């Protein structure tokens, strides 16, 4: 299986195959390395990728989202199966979706479908834990759809607004 893994600013294409009790792993088309290790408890892994590259890390996955705790560092990103992703793009979704990072309640919606917006323009304000969080346009474009209304409760990962890039 091939996965596109993104953690922090680092992006890699990682190939994983089962190999007895371990795995054969290749990062960005590099040499295949044998990784041994095991799952420990709910989120723990102890992995040995050879050449002294071995230690305990914790991994939580939720959908395509990944949270890796390496020591005290929370590394966040995603693990994508490009085959699924290709299907999704073919379906037309995905490009400019602005999504929440946490559950909350929509306080204000500041744009409507069809509006032109500039990069950084506030689209929607969501309150969570007594704090207002502004969700801004990641790029200039046109609002394709608004998926929420003021007063509505939203789950983590909910799509708030879909944007079409200005230059698309």
């Amino acid at each position: 299986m091939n996965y596109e893994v993104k953690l922090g600013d680092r992006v890699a294409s990682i190939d994983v195959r089962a190999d007895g009790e371990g795995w054969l792993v290749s990062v960005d088309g590099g040499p295949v390395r044998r990784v041994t290790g095991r799952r420990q408890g709910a989120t723990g892994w102890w992995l040995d990728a050879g050449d002294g590259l071995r230690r305990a890390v914790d991994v939580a996955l939720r959908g395509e989202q990944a949270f890796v705790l390496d020591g005290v560092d929370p590394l966040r990103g995603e693990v994508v199966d490009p085959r699924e992703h290709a299907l999704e793009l073919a379906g037309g979704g995905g490009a400019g979706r602005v999504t929440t990072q946490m559950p909350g309640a929509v306080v204000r919606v500041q744009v409507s479908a069809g509006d032109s917006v500039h990069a950084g323009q506030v689209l929607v304000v969501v309150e969570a834990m007594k704090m207002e969080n502004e969700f801004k346009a990641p790029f200039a474009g046109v609002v394709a759809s608004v998926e929420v209304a003021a007063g509505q409760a939203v789950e983590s990962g909910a799509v708030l607004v879909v944007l079409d890039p200005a230059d698309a």
Partner: protein
Amino acid sequence: MTNRPLTRVLVANRGEIAVRVIRGCHEEGLQAVAVYSEADADALHVRMADDAVCVGPAASASSYLVVDRILQAALDTGCDAVHPGYGFLSENAGFARRVAEAGLVWIGPPPAAIDAMGSKTEARRTLRAAHVPVVPGTVDPLHDMDEARRIAADIGFPVMLKAAAGGGGKGMRRVDDPADLEAALTAARSEARKSFADDAVYVEKLVEHARHVEIQVLADAHGTVVHLFERDCSIQRRNQKVFEETPSPVLAPEVREAMGQVACRAAAAVGYVGAGTCEFLLASNHTDFYFLEMNTRLQVEHPITEMVTGIDLVRAQLRVAAGEPLWFAQGDLTQTGHAVECRVYAEDPYAGFRPSPGPLDGYREPQGPFVRVDGGVYEGGEVPIHYDPMVAKLVVWGTDREEALSRAARALRDYKVVGIPTSIPFFLALFDDPDFRAGRYHTGFLTPAWLAAHLATPEPGDDLPLIAAAIARFERDRALAGAAPATTDASAWKRAFRWAQHHRRPA
């Protein structure tokens, strides 16, 4: 006051403080009943209590703050006392009165003492009469410019003009120079009128580079008032305490002694009973201090006082509420070693401390010598969105400050919270700051610039985290596809295992 032994306590709170109070009740041999909102049905305090009652939907205003429902829960479950924790109804004198009227013991100060300390103006008057130093300035609003000039000159510049009806920074003006006073007063009045429909403004001395130092007091119903020394709570982010320690790195013994006596006087002046905290501003000369307010309940950061005095403040509250006299005098109390508290919040330190509630896929608290975690969560549970995003308080003791900090750093590294970012990395950055390490800080220490300079979003140091994420995904895909993964519940279930019986009964 007569003795009134307790048997069953309603804990009118949630999260770590509810858990803390339940523990105290159990140690005193009392049963504890939890209340919970629908959002907290899976909370740790519910699991730990002897009984639990749902008091409404997620919003606090519809559950934890509804006096009638809390009282009904106490009566329905046969409780004879109510402990309010902190926050929620803990400083609500009306609630305290309702508890007493229902024939239950209120584990807190007399309602009159809550009222006396709750009104800023009344408290200032009472405490001045008791020779408690308050920030120099006027108690009543300024009449005119002449009065403003006279008083400002008297207390010395810089001064702060404040809207009497104010809050949230509106109607406040800092004045450094007498020449600017008139313009500032006009502006403050105008802003106050616009914001609060009331242009009353008063003037106070501006205490610059102050530290926030507070004194824990404990009083019984028999007239004894003692203090349990100070806590330095000057490490604040946006006026919220995030780290506390005791002793304060800068308090001289004679200042500590004076501050403790003042706190006891303040408590006595309002007929205080139970545990309470007098907050002070300590000027940058580390000698002058001014009373700010008294918190008439248990304080979030009470554990560090417990660690250096050995006194369990919750058990003390329970005994005092039952009418027992304090079992120690001021002279019996000592401050041994050094204790620190790190408030571990579900907040992302790499994203402006944005709240990060959510599920705790993995969770393991640090342990070992002189490490204590007052938490309200467990592995597989979650930090709900609706309340204060506190995960737990990490409390660490050492023989001295250096030992306490090196131990706390170890404990922070031992602390595994998997699934949501927390403020843990922030504390490690704080501990690395030479000024902090030397105890040189004040309430303005944690500026946005400091945070930006000390918290760089972590990046993978090598390929291992990426490989781990890919392998975890690979194993999940395999498991969902029906292949046997290395370890899952299902495979464990299938493994034959028996531990209960020596042999099976013949069929």
